[in-house]
């Protein structure tokens, strides 16, 4: 199947190095301590953060740092065909773990000993790249909750189809069987915190593909910063400063 036309356009009309339209909104869940909606094209996720608060299960308490927990869930209507999933299947458990580890790496957990931070991500629409969208949403929600972080971790995926590196795969491109590289990146510190790839790829090409994903992460980080600045200005305005 042809994923990149001779004119250099992808199935949804993007150029190979073009990202889908991204949109973010802070404060979607009123009752949570911090929350955000993040959209990448047709992928849409909500993240809510509760905490830092008292540890609910005493046996999990850590004496010198905060306990970070994460749960990823998909709505029944999020996929094209309606699914009736059992809660906590292997895929969502794995994604929960990935998000937790990525977020834990950037939260300054040692500042909040004996407390707990819960991150809940809910997928409303899935069109490829839910992992990345969830991490971006979680970052915004953590920032909204005012949780101290090293940096704003962002995530983006890239792939390699028809001998072309492609940025930010959608569902059709993702299920084409080519490699799918998901990168989590700390833009200020210039460090990669998450790296996953399936399928195989020559090393020299992998370098390009990963670099492309990192560029995507940087672009998202800029956007997230803009959104946060805008949100803070709004808060400032409401307080009448």
């Amino acid at each position: 199947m042809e994923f990149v036309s001779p004119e250099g356009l992808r199935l949804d009309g993007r150029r190979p190095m073009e990202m889908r339209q991204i949109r973010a909104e802070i404060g979607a869940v009123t009752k949570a301590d911090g929350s955000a909606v993040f959209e990448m094209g047709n992928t849409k996720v909500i993240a809510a953060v509760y905490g830092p608060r008292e540890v609910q299960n005493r046996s999990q308490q850590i004496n010198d740092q905060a306990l970070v927990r994460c749960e990823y869930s998909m709505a029944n209507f999020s996929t094209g065909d309606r699914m009736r999933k059992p809660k906590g299947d292997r895929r969502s458990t794995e994604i929960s773990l990935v998000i937790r580890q990525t977020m834990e790496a950037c939260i300054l957990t040692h500042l909040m000993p004996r407390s707990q931070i819960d991150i809940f991500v809910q997928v409303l629409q899935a069109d490829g790249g839910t992992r990345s969208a969830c991490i971006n949403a979680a970052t915004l929600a953590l920032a909204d909750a005012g949780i101290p972080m090293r940096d704003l971790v962002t995530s983006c995926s890239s792939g390699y189809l028809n001998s072309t590196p492609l940025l930010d795969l959608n569902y059709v491109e993702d299920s084409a069987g080519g490699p799918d590289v998901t990168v989590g990146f700390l833009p200020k510190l210039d460090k990669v915190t998450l790296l996953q790839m399936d399928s195989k790829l020559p090393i020299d090409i992998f370098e390009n593909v990963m670099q492309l994903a990192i560029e995507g992460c940087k672009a998202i980080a800029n956007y997230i910063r803009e959104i946060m600045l805008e949100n803070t200005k709004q808060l400032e305005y409401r307080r009448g400063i």
Partner: protein
Amino acid sequence: MVGLSLGEKHFIQGGIAQDIRSDGRKRLTYRPINVETGVIPQANGSARIRMGATDVISTVKAELGKPISLQPDKGKVSIYVDCSPTAAPMFEGRGGEELSTELSVALQRSLLGGKSGAGAGIDLSSLVVVEGKICWDLYIDCLVVCSDGNLLDALGAAIKAALSNTGIPRVQVAAGASGDEQPEVDISDEEFLQFDTSDIPVIVTLTKVGRHYIVDATTEEESQMSSAISISVNRKGHICGLTKRGGAGLDPSIVLDMISVAKHVSEQLMNKLDSEIAAAEAGEDES
């Protein structure tokens, strides 16, 4: 669940007794309702309803199926509710399952009628394509994104809004299939049939706190309730379903009184909801 001090409890109860609640509302006033339609593009219809901090999404997906043999002239509708952990940390893992089931069953009771399918708020016979062979199965999936009390009313309103947003593809049935054969069908990509939602009831929950009852209770107010009655009323003023929750018993005369109050409130709610849905649909067409 809700940590309230004795003083706060007295404040809520006293406010309700004096007909001015913590947020300034009267006992029978709803919070402002915000309706958004078409929020989930891959569903046949969807809506998001916000009442104060309560935030729910409802979607409708239509699939072709076979009617059950006892009711060859009726389609099938199933309602599922899912409580997202984003709404409250206690819904994490399997924590939300109990509430989800309670809400799903209450909604089915209020909107779908009895086992025979008679008296349903949703007109099931309009879902039949070929009698006894093909019908539409409607899957209504609801998601609770944020919860601040009165979930059942919000979910009922969201389903009503989602159904009025629903377009069911027109189906062409190939002639010539006879007997037991399953006829071939052709689903149109362009022509959609709108659903008649004028008969779908609204749900009004009256929560009894002390000697009085209130509509649209917040989580704090719900924690003070002795019992609650959810009544679904359609436009004609007929009662389509009823659920009583809460531990305390109710005097039968109070139940009848609550029903008549709910009927009165439902008219206002129905009109308000209709105008909000129409405004949301108009806004969607423009954008």
